[in-house]
């Protein structure tokens, strides 16, 4: 397996190294040890559930996740009852009904996450002209996604480094490309109360919400890796058998 990894990586390294470098500009986010990292990692369910809480109570005020439905939360280990309760917390616009009227009703598990703003313009208007991006795919949509989001959330500095002029209405972040980001520091210690008693430090919340977002971007990750192990093991055995048959057939060849 490791050799396979090496060969595959070596083969692709030449090709893809430049693409990775093209991101540039901001300092490289420090690599973190993620439960879902490596080739065989899986999502830490407890962390992802705490991360959902952070998203729900902090991020969701501005950031939509329109690719996710409440029913998807089963993937981080929530029960049907819990999901129904979460969905019901939101009023969802539905309709038109038989009278031609739009109406609001409590959310159902099949509903997509309710977006905080009805459209991009409303989102910009409420956020000083900046658009809070949809977070459904954010981990896949940034180079080194998980490390970057974690670094961004913990990378706010109260003061810009000496010699850097402050920017009106912007916030200094060590890891944001260009450093000046419209989003104010979102996470502060003890902002969220975790039901499992985990201390809600900024670092802990950043880690949890990143785990949640990583799951949201690649909900198929665990199934994909588990299938990959089986497929590759099967192919290795098949390769051995095929090679044996090849040797046998060619051995019979009279030159």
């Amino acid at each position, binding site marked *: 397996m490791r050799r396979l990894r090496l060969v595959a990586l070596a083969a692709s390294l030449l090709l*893809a190294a430049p693409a990775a470098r093209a991101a540039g500009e901001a300092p490289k986010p420090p690599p973190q040890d993620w439960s879902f990292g490596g080739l065989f990692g899986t999502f830490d369910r407890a962390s992802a559930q705490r991360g959902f809480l952070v998203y729900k109570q902090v991020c969701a005020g501005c950031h939509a996740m329109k690719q996710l439905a409440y029913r998807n939360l089963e993937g981080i280990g929530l029960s049907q009852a819990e999901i129904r309760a979460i969905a019901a917390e939101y009023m969802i616009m539905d309709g038109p009904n038989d009278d031609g009227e739009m109406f609001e009703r409590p959310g159902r598990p099949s509903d997509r996450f309710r977006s905080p703003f009805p459209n991009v313009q409303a989102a910009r208007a409420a956020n000083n002209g900046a658009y809070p991006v949809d977070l459904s795919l954010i981990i896949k949509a940034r180079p080194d996604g998980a490390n970057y989001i974690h670094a961004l959330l913990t990378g706010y500095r109260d003061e810009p480094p000496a010699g850097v002029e402050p920017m009106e209405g912007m916030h200094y972040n060590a890891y944001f490309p260009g450093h000046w980001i419209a989003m104010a520091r979102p996470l502060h210690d003890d902002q969220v109360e975790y039901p499992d008693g985990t201390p809600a430090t900024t670092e802990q919340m950043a880690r949890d919400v990143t785990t949640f977002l990583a799951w949201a971007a690649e909900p198929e990750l665990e199934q994909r890796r588990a*299938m990959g*192990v089986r*497929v590759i093991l099967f192919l290795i055995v098949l390769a051995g058998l095929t090679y044996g048959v090849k040797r046998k057939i060619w051995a019979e*060849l009279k*030159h």
Partner: protein
Amino acid sequence: MVGLHKSDFKNPVVRWIDERLPIPSLLQKEYAQFPTPKNFNYFWNFGALAMVCLVVMIVTGIFLAMHYTPHTAHAFDSVERIMRDVNYGWLIRYIHMNGASMFFIVVYIHIFRGLYYGSYKAPRELLWILGVVILLLMMATAFMGYVLPWGQMSFWGATVITNLFSAIPVVGDDIVVWLWGGFSVDNPTLNRFFSLHYLLPFLIVGVVFLHVVALHITGSNNPLGIEPKGPQDTIPFHPYYTIKDSFGLVVFLIVFAFFVFFAPNYLGHPDNYIEANPLVTPAHIVPEWYFLPFYAILRAVPDKLGGVVLMFGSIFVLFVLPWLDTSPVRSMKFRPLARPFFWVFVLSCLLLGYCGAMPPEGIWVVLSRVGTAYYFLYFLVILPVLGKLERPLPLPVSISERVLGGGPVPAAAAAKPMEKA
């Protein structure tokens, strides 16, 4: 002349069909008995691998098209729906996405194999030309396929590449509007790209068929680059090469599976998971990795039209390669003087690929120009002149003599114990 085909098949059903529609006979002749040089190395697997890639792409593509919506307002979300809600949609899409990269890796190796062993030389010129046509069709298909998910790189890649046509004097701008079906890359562009992306693979199938027909007229080249002198130099395609190709295929599938299951987005660009936004330009617009060498050539030239001409020229020069290379000796094995130039050519292609991913400034521009210069120098000057100047090594009398060791065994053959030399 009317009458039934004379069939050798014993099975009455097969025989009945064969007498009326001799496809079983044809397959028997062209795929079972087909006399094939007995000294292939594993580089001769890549044609079959490319064929498998094409089939995989068409099959996965048909299933993706069942769930994809070619509309600017829905395309991105429909792809995400495939990833999240369609049963095993993520698997189908990741196979298709990485399959494109695998197809290009395989085809590029296939092409370099042809360049090294002189597979383009007489009498295989048309076989080679059909191969270049396939490459062009593949590039068009891959480019349009990359636009369909309607991410940022889809949109801006489409904008950059279609804009190249504006470099054509006088009619350029009109052509671009015609290609777009409007005044920017928009819904009509996406619609036609989807239509063509579905059409072109079937054209590729057609040209692949011609490629194979041409191959079966001339027969395969081989690592020694000399024609088989008789039955002692060839073996039937089946079972010898069917099993050898099968082994190569399984090894290839392991690499393919590694990407699909463990690094599905490694060869892609993160920006394509951001929905297309005509108002926000990505910091660096880069094409997919398989286009990077050509992108570097495009940007190496300070003049837009010149860049476009050289970029397309880098493919079109391949069409005339059979007449540019003046050496009668096919295999580089017997061309000690040409061999280092070939490997520098390979390096120049890799260098161009690297430069293509870098911002077009500073040292990268210089290196792109060096790479571009060598690329064309190799085809237009080095190969034509070397053929006249060099003294090739003496060619073996026949494939058998070489394989049986009636002379110094070539290094590559000695390194292959499974060949039972």
